[in-house]
Structure formats: structure tokens, C-alpha cells
């Protein structure tokens, strides 16, 4: 897979990555046989960078996120490499991982209520992180908890610190989760669908908090979402996943201006956007269904739903390779990438 390596070296010119995932594969053994959830996923996160990972349910985005800090159950078989500032995490013993989690790599999840302990005040819960990882005194931890709550935009943090989770709105709870996640100043924050359970007017505020954290603390953020609007709002670079594989990787403006993979293009035109499709009668559809994950076939996983698929696509899996102008670090795994929209660029056509 020389093409892949060459392409990856090119994109690392952006900066030394704080997190580098290489050829990560995850499979689960079930009664029905082995299920491959993630197939040779590679991605990098530079310090202070926000990378968006987008895909539909079952594409392997959450499994990828969980495997980064070893959060998957024992039934998961993981291969490949996850390096945090050069230190390998795959295969690392649990006690070492436990020091990494929360301190170096922190997580926030979709549903803040299930991640918070309902019988402890939010101050105690944030304080616990600081007491465990930073060995702070109870008093110092509480004072820091108040600071963190105001950092994530919670008004009257001095009072809110003594609230229980049920006394807070959904948006506030997610802010508490973020405060807890950044308490120890992690280098990497993994946010798995952080706004999916929230109303759209609340979502905007949460995305703003994440952006602020990146700007103020330089935290690198991997945000996982199914929502292209969220990606367009916050991500610097984008990783598009489909059926366990990365199908496209590009800087955000390049990806939206010229998606090369047919799945990305389909996803973009299937998303209703106010004002953009005004007057049109129909949304673009992607025909067919997401394939059932089993052993990954040696073929393009999107071939069955793709308008451009031919025999090649069904016989061999396309590598993730550079497309378009070299300076853009735009990669796509497609034998027949989409031509450029309107303004024709000859090298983009198959």
C-alpha cells in the first residue's frame, strides 16, 4: 500500500501530529462470526486542530473513537497503531492507559445525563478528576471546578457548582461534561456526537465552547458526527467514513467544494440545507442500503450503491490516494472520483 503511505507523509507536513492513528482495524467475534467494524483507518490530529469524522450509523466512527484510548470491551480485536505524541497506545497495559485517559485524552459523549453521576454535585464530579489525576486538595479542586464551569460558559458558576445534574438543562450538562473533560488540560479531546441529543439553538453554544477551548488551550479535537452542518461549522479537516473504512480525507473547504468520493458527494446532496435547495422539489437520494459489516470484502464497500461503479470496483478495494492538487492534501479511496463541479479540472476525472 505504497500510495497510502506516500499520501500520509504528505499530509503530516501540516505539523507534527499529537495523535497519529495508522491502519487501525477493529473486529468483534460474535456468535455469527467475526465482524469487521473498522478496517485500516488512518488519521492524524495536529495540536490545536479540529478534525471532524463524519459518517452514518454503523460506519465505524464511534468504534474508532473508542479504540483510541482503549475503551472497547475485551471482545474487540484491535490491530494497527495509535500514537499519542509518539507513544504507542495499542496493546498498552490497562494501568498505563488509565493514566492517559482523562489526563492526556479526554472524551465527551452524546448523552450527558448517562455520563454524569446523578447523586453527586457537578463540582464533586469535576473535582474527582482533579483529585485523581492532579492530586489536588478538596478545596483547590472545588475552586478549579468553578473556574472550569465559567470557562465553558456556565453563568453563575459559583452557584452551579453545587447543583446536581438533574437541576441542569441538557446543554448545561454537556458543558459540565466538557469542563470535566478539559479539567486536566488534555492534549486530545474526543467528542462523540456531542450535540446530537441537543436542540439546535443549544448546539450552537456547545460548538462555540469547543472552538474557544481549542483557541485558548490549544486542545486538539476529534469531533465525531453524522451532521455535515456541524462539520462545516467547526472542523479544519474532515475524515469521511463508510462501512468501516475511510473513504475521503480533506481540508474542510476542499471537501465541500469538491468531494471526490461518490459517497461524500451523495451525502452532501442528500442533506437538506435551508435556502440552498429552495424551489427544488426533491432531495437527492443515495439508493440502496449500508452493507452489513462482516469480513471486509476485497472491493469498494460503496460499489453496490454507487452510480459510477464498474467491474474494477467490485474486484478490488481502492486505496486512499491523493486526488486533486497536491497542496490540498486531499485523499479519496475511489477508482472513479467525481469530476470537479462546473470549473473543469482535467486531472480529477477518471
Amino acid at each position: 500500500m505504497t500510495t497510502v503511505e506516500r499520501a500520509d507523509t504528505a499530509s503530516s507536513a501540516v505539523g507534527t501530529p499529537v495523535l497519529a492513528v495508522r491502519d487501525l482495524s477493529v473486529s468483534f467475534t460474535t456468535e455469527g462470526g467475526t465482524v469487521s467494524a473498522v478496517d485500516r483507518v488512518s488519521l492524524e490530529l495536529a495540536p490545536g486542530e479540529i478534525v471532524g469524522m463524519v459518517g452514518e450509523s454503523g460506519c465505524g466512527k464511534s468504534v474508532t473513537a473508542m479504540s483510541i484510548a482503549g475503551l472497547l470491551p475485551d471482545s474487540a480485536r484491535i490491530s494497527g497503531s495509535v500514537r499519542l505524541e509518539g507513544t504507542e497506545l495499542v496493546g498498552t497495559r490497562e494501568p498505563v492507559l488509565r493514566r492517559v485517559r482523562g489526563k492526556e485524552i479526554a472524551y465527551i459523549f452524546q448523552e450527558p445525563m448517562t455520563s454524569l453521576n446523578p447523586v453527586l454535585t457537578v463540582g464533586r464530579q469535576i473535582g474527582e478528576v482533579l483529585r485523581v489525576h492532579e492530586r489536588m486538595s478538596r478545596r483547590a479542586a472545588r475552586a478549579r471546578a468553578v473556574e472550569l464551569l465559567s470557562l465553558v460558559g456556565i453563568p453563575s458558576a459559583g452557584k452551579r457548582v453545587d447543583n446536581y445534574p438533574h437541576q441542569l438543562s441538557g446543554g448545561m450538562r454537556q458543558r459540565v461534561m466538557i469542563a470535566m473533560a478539559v479539567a486536566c488540560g488534555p492534549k486530545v479531546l474526543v467528542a462523540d456526537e456531542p450535540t446530537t441529543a441537543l436542540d439546535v439553538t443549544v448546539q450552537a453554544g456547545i460548538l462555540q465552547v469547543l472552538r474557544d477551548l481549542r483557541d485558548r488551550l490549544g486542545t486538539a479535537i476529534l469531533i465525531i458526527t453524522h451532521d455535515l452542518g456541524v462539520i462545516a461549522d467547526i472542523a479544519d479537516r474532515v475524515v469521511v467514513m463508510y462501512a468501516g473504512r475511510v473513504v475521503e480525507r480533506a481540508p474542510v473547504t476542499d471537501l465541500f467544494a469538491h468531494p471526490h468520493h461518490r459517497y461524500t458527494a451523495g451525502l452532501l446532496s442528500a442533506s437538506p440545507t435551508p435556502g440552498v435547495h429552495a424551489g427544488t422539489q426533491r432531495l437527492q437520494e443515495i439508493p440502496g442500503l449500508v452493507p452489513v459489516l462482516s469480513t471486509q470484502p476485497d472491493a469498494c464497500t460503496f460499489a453496490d450503491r454507487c452510480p459510477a461503479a464498474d467491474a474494477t470496483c467490485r474486484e478490488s478495494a481502492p486505496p486512499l490516494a491523493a486526488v486533486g492538487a497536491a497542496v490540498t492534501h486531499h485523499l479519496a479511496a475511489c477508482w472513479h472520483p467525481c469530476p470537479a463541479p462546473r470549473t473543469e479540472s482535467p486531472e480529477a476525472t477518471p
Partner: protein
Amino acid sequence: MTPQPNALELEDLVMHFGPVRAVDGVSLTIPRGRVTALVGESGSGKSTVGRCVVRLEKPTAGAVRIAGTDVTHLSRRQLRRHRSDVSIVFQDPAGSLDPRMLVGEIVAEPLRLSGRRMSRRDREARIATELGKVGLRAEVARRYPHELSGGQRQRVSIARALISGPKLLIADEPTSALDVSVQASVLNLLADLQRDIGFACLFITHDLSAVEYLADDIAVMYLGQLVEKGSREQIFTRPAHPYTQALLAAAPVADPIRQRQRQPVLLGDDLPSALDPPSGCRFRTRCPLAFDRCAAEVPAQVAVGGGMAACHLVQPDGTRPDVRAAGTSEVLS
């Protein structure tokens, strides 16, 4: 000559669950064959409105008229005669389809309940026709719901809802549980069926962008009350109420260049409770434009551009506030 009755008329609908004022005086009319989207965020009471229309709830006060018949106070037995006038499709097809019934039985159940007699062959032909209308093959009738994908299950729900030929379809977040690529095909299907069959539809959603294709009119709900009503065009291009404006501004557009040029409108995220709604205008605790009068006085519904908006800053001459000009109101407690 009597004019054709409207598909749906809600008059001052009130639904309280004990102290929770879920719906507090909603009036809405859907003419025959038109689609109205009822848009609101979680806890706004939009689903409760839908449940009152199909009489899954008995309203506390007000009136529900379907195709000219007042169904507000009908008993279960009396309701049965009107069941074929209105149907509902729910958000989660997995939860609304009986897992022990074959798809064919599910689709035909409304016919069975209406007491209509049919030969087995006629019934099977009818099921095949209905499945065909929603883009499913006739074989699907012999499958169980768990054998189908989420999008296919939602098509089954739609077939069941339409088999009795309703004059009004309530679609309660029918695509929210589906993936983007599947969402598009279900929205297209609903739009096609609506155009071909011509039923009226109350499309309940939290997502304004999903209704731009479908809705003729849009009603925006906040904490149990309507804050704005208008044609789709008016709501998308000239929203009058600050809440409608904030909703439109908050939904990110899938275009990084446009999205990053937009001015964000950040509302405080401490949502008031329907147990104890704010005095005056219920949106005032999150509204960046709120002033003294908003706490003291419930805003009247002002007619604007063929619709209405309930805001003290909206004038009958067309003057409307601009929430984006007010900047943000991050801290509000």
C-alpha cells in the same frame, strides 16, 4: 353551497398533564390537501399537539375538528367512525410496529379494524398495492419488522397510515431516527404521495431544513404556544419572531464558507420549564431583544405578511425585530 371543510382546525387547544402545561392555547388551520409543518424544539409541546389531533390524548380544553367533525369529546366508540379520516406516523418505526405481526398484517390492520369485509385474495392484492405505493416489493408482506431496515420500516408505517385513505396525515418526526441518506428518500416519498393522493399533512419536526420541500405553511412552537405562523416562503425569507430567526440562524448550513460567514445567534441554554413558564412572553428569558414589557404583558398575535407573530416588537405595519443585530445573550440568569 357549503364550502369544503378544512382538513384540520385547532381552536385554542390546551393540554395539561397535571401541573405541566404542555400545550397552552394553540389555534391552527390546515386546509384540504395542504401541508403545515409544526416546528419546535424538545419540550415545545409539538408532539402533544399531534397526539391530541389523533385523540391519543383527550385535550384539557379547546377544540379539534377534523374534516368538519368536532372530535374533541367523542367517546372511543364514536371515534372509531372517524378513525379513517386521520392517521399518524411516528418517529421510531421500530417502536410503533408490532414485532410479532407480519408486515402484511400490520399494513392491513386499519382495514380490519374498520370492520370492512374483504376476501383474502382482495386483501392480499390491496396490501401489495399499498406496499408498492411506498416503494416496497409485495414479498415484504410476509416478513417481520425486524427483518427490515429503518427506512423500510418507516415505509411500512406510512403504508399502514395511508391504507384507509385519510384526509389528514400526522407525521411526527418521521425521519429523525434515520440516517441522512435514508432520510432523503423517506422525505421524497412523503412529498410524492402527498402530491399524488392529496391528503393534508401536519408534519411535526424539530428540523426546519427538513420541511423546506414539503411544507406549504409553517407554524413555530415554543413552550406550549405558537410564536409564529406563515407561508414557507415567508418563514424562510422574512421570519418575524426572534425565536424563528434564532432557529434559522442556529441550524448550521453544510457549506463551510457560508457557515463561517454567518453571524451566530447564541441563546442562553437554560430552558424554562413547562411547569412554571415565564410571565408575559415565554421566550423572553432566552431572547436577546427582551425588554421590560416582555415580562409584564403577553404579546398579542400580530398579523404580518399573511401570517402572524406573537412579539411586542412586531408591528402591523411590517416592522420586525432582527435578533442578529442584537448580538448574543450568553449569560441570562
